[in-house]
């Protein structure tokens, strides 16, 4: 319990330093652009591939579990659409990114810590927490909504291509299904969750990396902890946000 409270306290103290006034805006802007490429653009590939196949599987599973003449076939498209928008493209993609981006952030910052690069920044008079972490948070919060939109589009396309190829639904029924009873707020809900999850992934992982004490073994441990803690926090906030935004 004491360790939890101590870690929680140090997380908030770190956030206080991260959001302090930047030393030089032009340098932070440049760093943010680099992080947009590193954390954002380089995640498009994995998000696209996973979303395509998950969309396909969701469509096939919906089709095989609704093989009943009472249900109209277009419900397969509707079910796939809502599953992808409400849960898959925000929460599941966030969990995947917690693994990819979170471990990357924790190991990068952890390595900077054990090789004294963070000490070097501090000694120069640079707010190391802000210089290293703030651009990552800004980049993820700005870019992850685009990843979610890409995930939604490719997921729905995956369901359409595989669903029609497997013969579980026709193209017309699928397209009718994804348009039927569409609630635009669901997109807003998904994007709000994405922004919160992006903040959680970057800050929780950065906190783990920043507080590494030791050598390469501890960097590995911090990387694992970053993924576990980010994932658990995402799941917790998923429940809270769903209750707040959809109730």
């Amino acid at each position, binding site marked *: 319990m004491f360790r939890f409270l101590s870690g929680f306290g140090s997380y908030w103290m770190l956030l206080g330093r991260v959001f302090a006034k930047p*030393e030089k805006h032009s340098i932070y802007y440049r760093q943010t652009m680099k992080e947009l490429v590193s954390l954002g653009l380089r995640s498009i590939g994995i998000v696209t591939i996973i979303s395509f196949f998950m969309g396909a599987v969701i469509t096939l599973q919906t089709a095989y579990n609704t093989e009943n003449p009472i249900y109209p076939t277009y419900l397969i498209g509707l079910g796939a659409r809502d599953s992808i928008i409400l849960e898959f493209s925000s929460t599941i993609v966030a969990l995947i990114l917690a693994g990819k981006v979170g471990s990357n952030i924790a190991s990068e910052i952890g390595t*900077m810590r054990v090789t*004294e690069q963070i000490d*070097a920044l501090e*000694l*120069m*008079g640079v707010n190391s927490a802000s210089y290293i972490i703030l651009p990552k948070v800004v980049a993820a919060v700005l870019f992850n909504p685009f990843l979610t939109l890409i995930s939604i589009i490719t997921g729905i396309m995956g369901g359409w291509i595989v669903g029609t190829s497997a013969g579980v639904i026709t193209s017309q029924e699928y397209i009718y299904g994804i348009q039927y009873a569409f609630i635009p707020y669901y997109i807003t809900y998904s994007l709000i969750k994405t922004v919160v999850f992006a903040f959680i992934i970057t800050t929780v992982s950065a906190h783990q990396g920043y507080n590494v004490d030791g050598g390469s073994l501890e960097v590995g441990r911090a990387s694992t902890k970053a993924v576990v803690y980010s994932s658990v926090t995402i799941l917790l906030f998923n429940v809270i946000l769903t209750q707040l935004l959809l109730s």
Partner: protein
Amino acid sequence: MIRAGHISKSFGGRQVLTDISAVFEPGKTNLIIGKSGSGKTVFLKCLVGLLEVDEGEIYYDNVLFTGLDFRGRKELRKQMGMLFQGSALFDSMTVEENVRFPLDMFTNMSYDEKLERVNFCLDRVNIVNSNSLFPSELSGGMKKRVAIARAIALKPRFLFCDEPNSGLDPKTSIVIDELIREITVELNMTTIVNTHDMNSVMENGEKIIFIEEGAKCWEGNRNEILKSDCRILNDFVFANALARQLKDSSK
């Protein structure tokens, strides 16, 4: 000038530094020597504020560093440069970007002015045609020299070097020692070097502090060290037969 008074530091009940007082003079290479684990690095990190002291005071000229708040320390740190044991170059930056970093961060110089300063610093440490290389492409000695170039980019008044010769061959170690001594005089810096390299002690030891088990055990210079009767110091400095012969011949 840096003045440390009655510095004590402990970690979780384990006393690492006990009541260390010392004065480090400008224009001189001040050495802190002692065996591994004696507390040299902790003392150096306390001096630059990377570790908080439990007791004692540290003055930079007449400014009480230990009494400064975060902003005050930040300002003072712009006058400090440090060469870390592992060089601590930024992996994601090239040699040029590493040296330019403090200039980018704290000056309003134009790109050309910064480049001129970077090239001057790199030239000063004998690094040529390596601006676009990354730290992973450099040898240990080159990394140390680039780290020195970065440390002096802002013309600091205080230079700290933590084991500058660790991992280097004897010849490269001498080059690094000479470089530190030369730039200390050129920039009239107060330089403090942590070392257990006896060659450095004999070459650069204008002022030497010997730390044993976290306490100051002896203070003097390279000439006095040869005549010292301090048994613990002699056991450390003249640990091998050749060094003992040197001491005997100096008597």
